[in-house]
């Protein structure tokens, strides 16, 4: 025998005999015991010494983990990260979370069951089992039951395994060598697999496309799908201009976006005063607006020195100069609205209250960079 033996197979025709033999031979500790049968044999797993699978405990643990993670995620998204009241319900509405918790539990549990069974407990991927190369395999898939004593290392003694099987009523005995496997994956094989996947995708895509184009597709639940309403950005025969979405009536003004009553920032400075009282909330809103829109050029403290302006060679205004100190609130508001030099108008992005809030924040920055003694008290 050239290659080392993988296992010694004993063939049986009677399920009771194989159970008895398994018990008997297992006690001799000749190697790892396995059985290959065409149908389940009651009591054989016990005789082979196969204990209770740990899969169940793993699935339970992963299932509970799924429940906990789903609850945590839903709590975080709905009550912490983006608190949004829906239907007058509390932010942490566990009732609404249960379906997702249930689904994630099932997802974790089933995936754990399937993947752990295949890859952890049954040790896949496994390209071809040596027993598939044996003479006995035809019998095993039909009417014979095989008891297998498998090699656990170099000390595997095929002769005593053969003897043990024959003594315990095996009809015939076969020594199964390790088959001469080539490399399981060659470049050509890999390319063939990729080619097959691409071909399958193409076939499926062409098939679905042509079915949808050429055959009348019966849609399920037509009453839900085709509603006599107008969709935004869709055409409509109802209106003369053929548009589904109605343009706003001429002269419509959005709330907080009144057109300016001035043409230059200087003019704004003479006619406008800040209507917003300075509160903690307004100051924080101003900081957010400043950080989101202004900081990129004017710098985080408003001194006109920022990473981006240096990179582009631009010279944004320094908001902390004496000149800017002296400017009225309305002037800053006017600049935000109309833009100045290279600065564009921020009127479309910021509504009225945001513009006034950022004016407050500019004042705060000016004060903070030029603090007086009484500010520290």
């Amino acid at each position, binding site marked *: 025998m050239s290659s080392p033996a993988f296992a010694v197979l004993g063939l049986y025709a009677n399920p009771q005999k194989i159970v008895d033999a398994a018990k008997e031979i297992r006690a001799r500790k000749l190697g790892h015991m396995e059985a290959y049968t065409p149908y389940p044999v*009651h009591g054989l797993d016990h005789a082979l010494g196969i204990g*209770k699978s740990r899969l*169940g405990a793993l699935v*339970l643990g992963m299932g509970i983990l799924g429940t906990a993670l789903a609850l945590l995620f839903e709590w975080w998204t709905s009550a912490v990260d983006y608190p949004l009241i829906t*239907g*007058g319900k509390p932010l942490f509405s566990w*009732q*609404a979370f*249960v*379906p997702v918790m249930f689904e994630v539990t099932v997802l974790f549990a089933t995936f754990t069951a399937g993947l752990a069974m295949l890859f952890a407990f049954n040790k896949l991927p496994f390209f071809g089992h040596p027993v598939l190369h044996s003479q006995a395999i035809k019998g095993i898939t039909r009417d014979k039951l095989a008891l297998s004593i498998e090699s656990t290392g170099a000390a595997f003694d095929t002769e005593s395994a053969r003897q043990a099987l024959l003594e315990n009523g095996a009809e015939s005995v076969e020594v199964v060598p390790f088959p001469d496997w080539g490399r399981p994956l060659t470049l050509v094989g890999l390319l063939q697999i990729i080619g097959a996947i691409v071909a399958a995708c193409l076939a499926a895509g062409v098939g679905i496309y042509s079915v949808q184009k050429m055959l009348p597709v019966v849609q399920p639940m037509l009453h839900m799908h085709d509603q006599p309403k107008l969709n935004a950005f869709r055409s409509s025969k109802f209106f003369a201009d053929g548009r589904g979405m109605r343009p706003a009536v001429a002269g419509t003004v959005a709330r907080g976006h009144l057109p300016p009553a001035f043409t230059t920032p200087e003019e704004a400075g003479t006619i406008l005063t800040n209507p917003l009282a300075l509160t903690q909330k307004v100051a924080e809103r101003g900081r957010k607006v400043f950080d989101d829109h202004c900081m990129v050029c004017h710098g985080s403290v408003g001194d006109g020195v920022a990473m981006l302006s240096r990179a582009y060679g631009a010279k944004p205004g320094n908001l902390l100069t004496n000149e800017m100190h002296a400017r009225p609130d309305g002037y800053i508001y006017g600049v935000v609205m109309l833009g100045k030099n290279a600065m564009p108008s921020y009127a479309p992005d910021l509504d009225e209250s945001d513009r006034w809030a950022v004016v407050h924040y500019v004042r705060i920055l000016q004060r903070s960079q030029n603090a007086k003694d009484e500010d520290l008290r």
Partner: protein
Amino acid sequence: MTSDTVRSSAVNRNILVALTLLGAVGAAGVYVSAGPARFWANWLVWTLFLLTIGLGSLFLVALERLVGAHWSIPMRRVPERIASLVPLAVPLLLIAFLAVPVLFPWTFPEAAHNPILVAKTPWLNLPFFAIRLVVCSVLWLLYYAFFVRGSLRQDESKDANFTVRARRNAPFFMVVFFFTVTIVAFDWISGLEPEWYSDMFGVYLFAGTFLSGIAAMALGVLGLIRRGRLTEVKSKHFYNLGTLGLAFTVFYAYIGFAQYMLIWYANLPEEVVWFKHRIEGAWYPVALLLPLLNFLIPFFLLIGGEPKKRPWVLRIAALSIVLGHFVDLYWLIFPVLGPEPRLGWPELAMACLFLGLGFLQIRRAMGRGADMPVGDPLLVKGLEWQL
């Protein structure tokens, strides 16, 4: 039976008779002193408790016939005997017809001015209600006689044809069962607050019915084994009862929660008020008992493979489910009496009466036939059945 067990069983019987008589006297006292509304609410809870356990058992018997299960045949006499609660509960339910003018608001004169109730009069009117009650009762008794009496007759006749006939008739019973349990749920429970409406309520009662049927069967089987009977029934047999119990405890929780969540989400005034009466204030702890007794305890007891083979695990899970089913009915029906859960001597007296009646009926049924369906040609297959 030895003379010792005969004597102890006679003593048990006397205790049960005494309990029942005591309960009957107490029940009369309840009617006089605590008022008819409380009397009939108790009556309804207990009658439906006995009826649903009986129907759940009959359903289990029919289910075994329908799917041709072998594992449960050695234990089938237990649900057949518990199903004898159906012929006990039917007259009790017919008597409960007297409760209709007391408890059911759609019979009150004010109902004529309530547009919701007026719209429901094609279903909620006394003649049709009575017809439904009688038709359901007759169907239950017919199928009880067919499945249970037939099985007892088979003990003597060993007639294999009965097994075939039972299998052919089981699907029809399933249809009858689903319709009649839905009618019971709509007429006798949700009819107490007729403005409320839930599509799922019939399925909800069915889930509780089947679950408590499984639990009662498990308790009966384990009780007989403990008394040294049913020695051929091994852990592999009642392992499957645990599996069924596990599956249906999840089903019950799923249906119960789905009903609650949809109504909670939609927040429609006429629907949500039903739950408001049942989960707010003093009813809140009772509502918390439902998921605990009917789901959490049995689920975690029964989820493992090995624990299902241990009688004490199965017994605790089954007791939890049966108790949970009673709490369920109490929680469904008693809130119509007021915002406080009522639990006092009237409930105790009525419990004595109905528990006494129920156990006496099961005792009587236990005297009929062998502990196993010895005439069933498939019994051997059931005994040899392997996990």
